[in-house]
């Protein structure tokens, strides 16, 4: 029992017939996913076992529910479903049984009882224009609800690209004045778990780390956990050898596409997208966009909806670094100018500009 007389996670699980082995296996697999080293597995298991179930309040604002779907519809939910044993999900629109006034009362009661100790998850961006009237729950604006709930939280997880960077509502012309959590709340430990949606194991991994060790994992300059966002898709893409050899698909379903060549020409943003899709993959490790023949569109990066060139315009070759392949790609861009007037001209101009630009040391 914890000092407050509430059962620990281990005690609650034992009452449901789950032994410590479940936690040991969970800890070992999670520590592996988080890149923490084998000693961290038992430490994570012990941290979870002796903790009281962590109070979790989940606020959903201008979102599509995709982040919740990602977590709860995980194809092989073994690890993901365990998270609900470690947390007490005190408020969540889609998952909680209560609704209306009862739901709001549950949120306020949890905030009071667990002041300073509850974890806050936010998905969706927050409307700020005209005092935030464009998105309200029970007559309370998202902005008010966020400020009031964040006050006594011990940490905040901004889940998904909308909460982390503004996402789709933030895209031009941003009619509701959508803003990410980081723009609105300062002075609270914050993790940005971006992605549209984030990979299920990424969500669980971050939660498990916070629950077991009581602190945030190591973060990058955008507040994203380095364990999952430390490398680009391009860094770990299995089609990289084709990129390096300058072998590209020029359009969907052409000969190059059927041979599984690099998808740079059809708009793959892999080189500038930091995420774990190339290693973790989706649907229980089944596949990820590039493996299915579609370029990455960089959904874990800020403002990806407004990226110049759109989803299917190739990245300017200057962003690919100074490899031989980049120059080949630029040449290909030039040659294809005739193919599709608008896009071809745009690419041609970009490629010409890049080729003409003196190469910096960085690109060498």
């Amino acid at each position, binding site marked *: 029992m914890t000092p407050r007389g509430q059962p620990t996670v*281990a005690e609650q699980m034992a009452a449901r017939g789950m032994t410590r*082995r479940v936690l040991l*296996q969970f800890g*070992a697999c999670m520590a592996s996913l988080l890149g923490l080293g*084998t000693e961290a*597995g038992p430490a994570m298991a012990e941290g979870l076992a002796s903790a009281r179930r962590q109070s979790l309040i989940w606020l959903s604002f201008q979102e599509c529910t995709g982040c919740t779907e990602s977590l709860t519809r995980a194809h092989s939910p073994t690890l993901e479903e365990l998270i609900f044993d470690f947390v007490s999900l005190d408020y969540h629109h889609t998952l909680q049984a209560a609704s209306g006034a009862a739901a709001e009362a549950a949120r306020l009661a949890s905030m009071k009882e667990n002041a300073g100790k509850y974890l806050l998850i936010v998905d969706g961006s927050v409307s700020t224009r005209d005092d935030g009237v464009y998105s309200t729950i029970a007559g309370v604006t998202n902005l008010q609800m966020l400020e009031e709930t964040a006050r006594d939280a011990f940490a905040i997880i901004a889940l998904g690209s909308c909460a982390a960077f503004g996402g789709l509502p933030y895209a031009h012309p941003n009619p509701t004045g959508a803003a990410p959590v980081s723009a609105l709340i300062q002075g609270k430990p914050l993790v940005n778990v971006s992605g549209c949606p984030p990979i299920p194991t990424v969500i669980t991994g971050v939660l498990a780390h916070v629950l077991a060790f009581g602190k945030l994992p190591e973060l990058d300059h955008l507040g994203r956990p380095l364990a999952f966002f430390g490398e680009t898709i391009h860094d770990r893409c299995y*089609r990289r*050898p084709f990129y390096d050899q300058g072998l590209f698909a020029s359009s969907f379903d052409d000969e190059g596409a059927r041979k*599984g060549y690099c998808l740079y020409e059809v708009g793959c943003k892999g080189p500038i997208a930091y995420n774990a899709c190339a290693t973790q993959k989706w649907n229980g490790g089944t596949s990820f966009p590039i493996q299915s023949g579609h370029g990455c569109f960089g959904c874990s990066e800020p403002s990806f909806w407004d990226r110049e060139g759109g989803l299917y315009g190739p990245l300017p070759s200057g962003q690919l670094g100074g490899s031989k392949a980049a120059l080949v790609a630029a040449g290909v861009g030039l040659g294809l100018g005739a193919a599709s007037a608008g896009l071809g001209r745009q690419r041609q101009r970009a490629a010409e500009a890049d080729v003409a630009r003196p190469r910096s040391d960085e690109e060498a």
Partner: protein
Amino acid sequence: MSSPVHLPLARASEPTGCGAGGKTGLAPALIVEIAECLAKLADGKGQSAIDLRSLPMTDGDRDELSQILGRGELSMSLALSGESEIWETAYPGVWRVLYRNRDGDVIGDFIEITTMPQIAVAHIDDVQHSRRRLARWLEDEHGRRAAR
């Protein structure tokens, strides 16, 4: 006009170079590390573990490693969410721990160099819990006999 060329809708080919199915030499290199850990265990200096999924192993590397290490006397199956397996290799003290989920996907793959992998040992809290459960069964049994 010639007839359209039907390209076989093949899977994207694996990266060139060693080939994803081929061996990279990582398996023999790992044996060096395992040997060091085993020496440490033999000298009473503690246990170690290697997370195979943290290494860039190909299927060929994994097969080669399994071949070199072989299987020993003891193998255990662990029914948690899915069917997981723990077995001692042909080198006592060197174990393979393979965790699977309900769909049979591997979620953890470790080499443990130890006298017994920790997950196999019953935790004292679980022993306390089962002590109470068994005592309850005996009480109920006593009640059942008295009722006859």
